[in-house]
């Protein structure tokens, strides 16, 4: 029981069970409709991938506000390359390289120049979005039909046994990242850097390298999320991904990862993404104005953070 209480993701597990049961009882026909679940799965995957990347950065006590714009610019790059007759795999590789490059730039500014990650990535948020507007003149065309039928596009954006591939990819990668966090040297170093960077450094943990990897992983996942979204989507627009940075942070925090670093789980993050997605989709289905969702995210965050803080204090004194 104590172990369970100590887990940072206990709250979100309960929260997810609660919303699942609530929606099942409230409007079972609509909730269990395959199309509905499929939609929720797809959006959970998109937000979840972003949030997994964000988890790495938050675990090392930093933050990445640029993921929404990275999502945008990588997605637009992917689509634009395809529109210029570049093959899907090559577009994919180039777009992902761009994502890694952005992560590297963030890392260099934070690790080498010792700037605050909040400032660096806030700059990135505006800069990459601006770049999208400038280069596209505000308009992009969707992915051509031929490209959407490519095997890679189908692999990323298609479905398997009626389950969206995005969701399968999310579960696979989340599992992989959970293993990395819990079972590898890098994971241990990541938690150490987030918990106490000076102590980690004193024991020979390569703090700069760990941070650089975390930022690169974050941008990598943001880019992957964008490509997965667009791979099999007929159209797109330049505001793609706007606001996703805060949604991803919200999912991570609701999932139990502490903004103070060093504590958190990938399971919590994925459930956090599911939680927000499920609630949003049900609110729309029940006819609530979309603005309610925004208010709900705020309330959910406050409730979760309050509960987590109180629990942490009680455990400390226990």
């Amino acid at each position, binding site marked *: 029981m104590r172990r369970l209480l100590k887990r940072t993701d206990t709250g979100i597990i309960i929260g997810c069970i609660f919303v699942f049961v609530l929606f099942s009882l409230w409007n079972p026909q609509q909730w269990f409709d395959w199309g509905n679940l499929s939609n929720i799965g797809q959006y959970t995957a998109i937000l979840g991938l972003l949030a997994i990347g964000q988890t790495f950065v938050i675990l090392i006590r930093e933050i990445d506000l640029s993921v929404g714009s990275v999502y945008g610019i990588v997605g637009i790059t992917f689509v634009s390359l395809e529109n210029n007759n570049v093959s899907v795999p090559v577009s994919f590789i180039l777009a992902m390289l761009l994502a890694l490059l952005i992560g590297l730039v963030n890392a260099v500014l934070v690790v080498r120049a010792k700037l605050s990650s909040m400032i660096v990535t806030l700059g990135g948020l505006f800069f990459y979005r601006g770049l999208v507007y400038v280069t596209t003149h505000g308009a992009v065309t969707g992915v051509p039909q031929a490209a959407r039928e490519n095997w890679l596009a189908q692999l990323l954006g298609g479905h398997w046994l009626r389950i969206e591939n995005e969701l399968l990819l999310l579960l696979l990668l989340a599992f992989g990242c959970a293993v990395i966090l819990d079972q590898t040297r890098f994971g241990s170093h990541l938690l*150490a850097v987030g918990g106490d960077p000076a102590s*980690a450094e004193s*024991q020979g943990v390569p703090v700069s390298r760990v941070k650089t990897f975390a930022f690169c992983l974050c941008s990598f996942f943001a880019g992957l999320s964008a490509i997965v979204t667009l791979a099999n989507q007929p159209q797109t627009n330049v505001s793609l991904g706007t606001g996703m940075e805060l949604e991803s942070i919200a999912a991570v925090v609701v999932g139990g990862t502490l903004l103070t670093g060093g504590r958190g789980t990938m399971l919590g993050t994925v459930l956090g993404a599911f939680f927000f997605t499920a609630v949003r989709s049900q609110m729309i289905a029940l006819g609530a104005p979309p603005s309610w969702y925004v208010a709900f995210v705020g309330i959910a965050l406050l409730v979760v953070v309050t509960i987590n803080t109180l629990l942490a204090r009680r455990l400390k004194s226990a």
Partner: protein
Amino acid sequence: MTTEAQATDTKHPLISIRNVSLSYGNFQALADVSVDFHQGEMVGLVGDNGAGKTTLIRIISGLMPPTSGEVYFDGERITKFHPKKAMDLGLECIQQTIGICDNLSVGRNYFLGREPIKRFLGIPFLDKKKIREASAKVVHDFGLRDTIDVDDEISLLSGGEKQTFKIARAVTFRNRVIIMDEPTNHLSVRERARVNELAVQLKQQGLLVIYITHDIFQIHRIADRIVIMENGRKVADVPRDAMSAEALEEIIREGGRAASKVPRGL
């Protein structure tokens, strides 16, 4: 093994600091300091705040290079200053406030920075069994509470237990030099005695122990040699038996002006 090593090492110092200076901008933290440290000895490094003790230690433990001067380890000149390099040479610095990540388990802290790896399908995974067993053994051997589970977060340990844990970790990784930076601050009387006892044991095992403290009376009881620093300079370097703790205290109190009282030829 230790007796043999000791016999050869009395000839040349394990760590030799030669004319080392370090300045931060206009501020000179260390000015032309030369000092030797030998294997199997405990040296008390004493001085007031800002005397340069910590700066000297930061250089020795590879956290920063000196502005000028040379550092030798086991006869070899150190050219690259990096904490990892110092660790590889067998040097470990135990500090009051750092060295332990409170959010990690006892086991993970024990292997922090040198986690054992077990390959599965070529992928390097943490060897959790080894982490658990080796750290449990150390917890037991160093007399920490038997109720401590190595999977528990280390924040459950008391201040003294954490210090003991750090020393245990430093020793079991076959180190040659243990630097203890104010290791007994904020500890209870009993915990303090325990830490000092451990320090003496390390020395007896043939390690070089450099013990930094404000407390001349405490260190005078256990060290072989006392080095006093003041304003970035070494003002005294005497064997314990050569001077009383009171006389040494006077040197510190008078800011090195009493250093002329140090017996000649030392």
